[in-house]
């Protein structure tokens, strides 16, 4: 049996017409023109730039205005996204993002406010605070721990609260990322910093701070991020934070920036420049790319270290950037400025990856996604990477923080990183 099909199609013309119409519809511009980030898409890296600038300044109900400024600045009109200011029931929560120096501008306003309470956190216990008009600041009493309350009498229209720390020649900074699925283990990591602080002091390598490289929460809800924020209030040293993909995806309320403040910022840590980048969307905001030459300018620093949640290059980890074009520009600027190191999390393991040739230089990278997150079916290794900066150079090792029940710490070298003795 055979069958013949000979039905000429009248539909062909209509089909072509429909296809053409569809193509036309696809190419039409969408929506009315509006300013960037007007719709509050804080899952987008660019809109988090707007948010971190927004939360670096605040005006209270009593008319007092506060904002962060570049450390050492005398210009009270320029806002620097270097921290978080959040009104509370009793005053204003002040969380500098940086490990070392910070400057805060306080303007009394016109509503007749005479005082304001500042609830400082993330300030080193050895930081010297001073308050007063620019050039006439008065040193405040020293504090204990990383939180302090400062009662400010608004005696002048503009006051500056400045925090300063002494710089040793040799010092430590520790780095790790990825808390998300096990914040209890992260508490142990934070607790272990007491030992790190004591060990550093005993060996002449004081611990100056902790760079926490994102994925603080499993999902970006306020409850989770506030919990990690409360844990950081108990840290023995200041913690500089930058977000990961789990902290920001799909966010429409700028929760990360509202809880922690800035995600992208460069800071001086004595002889080192530490530049952290918000790579939470698997890329870099275009406006951050525009600032790469500035943020990664080595200037007169002995060391330049960049960091973010995502590895600058994934190696064989499979943990790639969503936008490799952005990572290529980052790598180029790291290479051009002769960066010593890129530190990252995201990969739930730790690795001193094979240096990446970039142009006529190489970029070195350490991944330390070990602050608590689930690591798969293998035996998990939690802890942080210790970076020691000294006139002799930069060295690194991994400090393991054992989970309860495990007693035998690992030794030797694994995946390119040696365990700290």
């Amino acid at each position, binding site marked *: 049996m055979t069958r013949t099909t000979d039905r000429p199609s009248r539909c062909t013309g209509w089909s072509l017409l429909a296809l053409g119409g569809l193509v036309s519809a696809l190419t039409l511009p969408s929506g009315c023109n*509006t300013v960037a980030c007007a719709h509050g898409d804080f899952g987008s890296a660019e809109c988090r730039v707007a948010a971190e600038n927004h939360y670096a300044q605040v005006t209270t109900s009593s008319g007092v205005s506060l904002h962060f400024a570049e450390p050492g600045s005398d210009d009270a009109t320029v806002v620097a996204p270097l921290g978080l200011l959040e009104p509370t029931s009793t005053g204003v929560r002040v969380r500098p993002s940086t490990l070392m120096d910070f400057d805060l501008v306080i303007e009394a306003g016109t509503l007749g406010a005479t005082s304001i309470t500042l609830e400082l956190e993330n300030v080193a216990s050895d930081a010297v605070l001073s308050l007063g008009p620019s050039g006439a600041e008065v040193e405040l009493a020293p504090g204990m721990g990383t939180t302090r309350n400062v009662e400010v009498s608004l005696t002048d229209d503009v006051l500056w609260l400045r925090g300063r720390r002494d710089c040793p020649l040799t010092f430590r900074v520790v780095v790790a990322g990825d808390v998300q699925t096990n914040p209890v283990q992260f508490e142990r990591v934070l607790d272990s910093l007491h030992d790190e602080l004591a060990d550093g002091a005993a060996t002449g390598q004081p611990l100056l701070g902790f760079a926490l490289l994102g994925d603080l929460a499993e999902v970006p809800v306020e409850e989770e991020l506030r919990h990690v924020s409360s844990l950081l209030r108990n840290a023995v040293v200041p913690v500089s934070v930058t977000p990961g993909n789990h902290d920001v995806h799909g966010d429409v309320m700028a929760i990360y920036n509202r809880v922690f403040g800035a995600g992208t910022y460069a800071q001086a840590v004595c002889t080192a420049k530490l530049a952290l980048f918000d790579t939470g969307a698997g890329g870099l905001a275009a406006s951050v790319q525009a600032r790469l030459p500035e943020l990664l300018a080595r200037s007169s620093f002995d060391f330049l270290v960049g960091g973010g949640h995502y590895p600058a290059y994934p190696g064989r980890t499979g943990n790639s950037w969503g936008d490799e074009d952005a990572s290529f520009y980052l790598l180029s600027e790291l290479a051009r400025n002769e960066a010593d190191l890129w530190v990252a999390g995201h990969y739930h393991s730790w690795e001193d990856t094979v240096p990446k040739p970039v142009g006529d230089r190489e970029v070195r990278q350490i991944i330390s996604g070990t602050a608590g997150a689930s690591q798969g079916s293998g035996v998990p290794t939690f802890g942080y990477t210790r970076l020691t900066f000294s006139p002799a150079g930069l060295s690194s090792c991994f400090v393991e923080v054992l989970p309860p029940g495990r007693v035998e710490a690992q030794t030797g070298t694994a995946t390119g990183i040696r365990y700290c003795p």
Partner: protein
Amino acid sequence: MRAALLLAALLLAPTVAFAQEAAGDEPSADEPSADSAPGDVPGTVWPLDGRRACPSLRACCVPGEDECTHPGMSRLMLGISGGAAFAAGAGTFLWVGDSLHSGDPQSAVLGVGLIGLGGSLVGMIADWMTPGSGGRVHDRPGRPTVRLTVSPGGTSTLDEAAPYGLGIRVDPTIALNARVSLQPHLGVSMGLGNSAHVAPVVGAVSSDQESAFPVVLRTWKMKVTAGAELAVRLPYPLAVKRPMYTGAVEVRWKPMWELRRRTLQPGAANVQIVEHNALYPVNLGLRWHVAPRQRFTFYAGPRIDWLSFSDPGDIELRRGKATMGTFYGEAWWQLDIPFSPLGRRKTSVNGRLNVGYIHSHLDGQRLDVGAIVGYFGPVELSFDLRIRKVNAPVAVQVTAGYRLATGGGPFVELGFVAPELGRKGT
């Protein structure tokens, strides 16, 4: 929304077109040649049953063809192997994890498996929707010899600019013999202007701006690609006689080289150049003819990178050594959809639906799933339409598609199809 509309339209296309059953066969431009000229007008009758047809399931023996294929059986095998690959990728991703270094190819395996599994299901639905139309499509779309690609620009953000993109690609087909074909490739694409980006922070702006946000970055991109694809159709049956009629298989080798150059001007600073060269020397794949009108193709291989940059204000690139890049892979499922029977009208019109996954994060395109960012490349949906005057040696092919990806979007292509080189009668 647009992608959903496109998908719906393409899936419904078979219902608005009358399928045809072609007795003869002419491999398309991206396939090994057979001995027939594109202008031939074969009959439109072929046996659906009898001894020449496959003995069971949805038999699709086509006269003049060596291979007899059971679409049902081959789709079942594709579905099982695709599902296994998907499960292996997902399992590696979720359970093996980073502590055991599950590694680079996990997402590629997952994506390729998903295309195989999905293609098997969609193929089954397509066959149900067009009963009795399993014959191979004459002059089905393939890669045109020359094509122009346009990707729309435009942005709704004030003071930003996103230029249209324009590309040209040349892919002549050389039939080396009845089972082997070679398709060299050369392509150039670029933005038709600079992209402009603002910082969402009030700052100093130029007088021609409409918002208070300063333009802080201007970029321009271009891409050059070159390579070739060698396709070798394996003898059938290869090892055992008529191995369940599961369709012909081609081995494919598609070495490629890509150059991406990005020119950046941050603010008023001097222009910098970032150049990325990618070489895919061992990009190997298979094409599986799971049904006369349905194919599954995948490629995979390593990527070798050279990353170069210039100092600000200097166009001379600082070049260096090569390094391994991320693992590369792509998978395609294709469905031929004939719109009008050749020989009954003066023009033949045939369509092809393409669903693909590209495991790459270049060009700023990736598929994000919740917090899973940076693991998957884009998914592409496209539809080709080849239009040929009867007996004409050349044809026109138009393509509309959409990259389902962050940074993706629609594109259209206009192609010119020249006769294959080396084929008899052309």
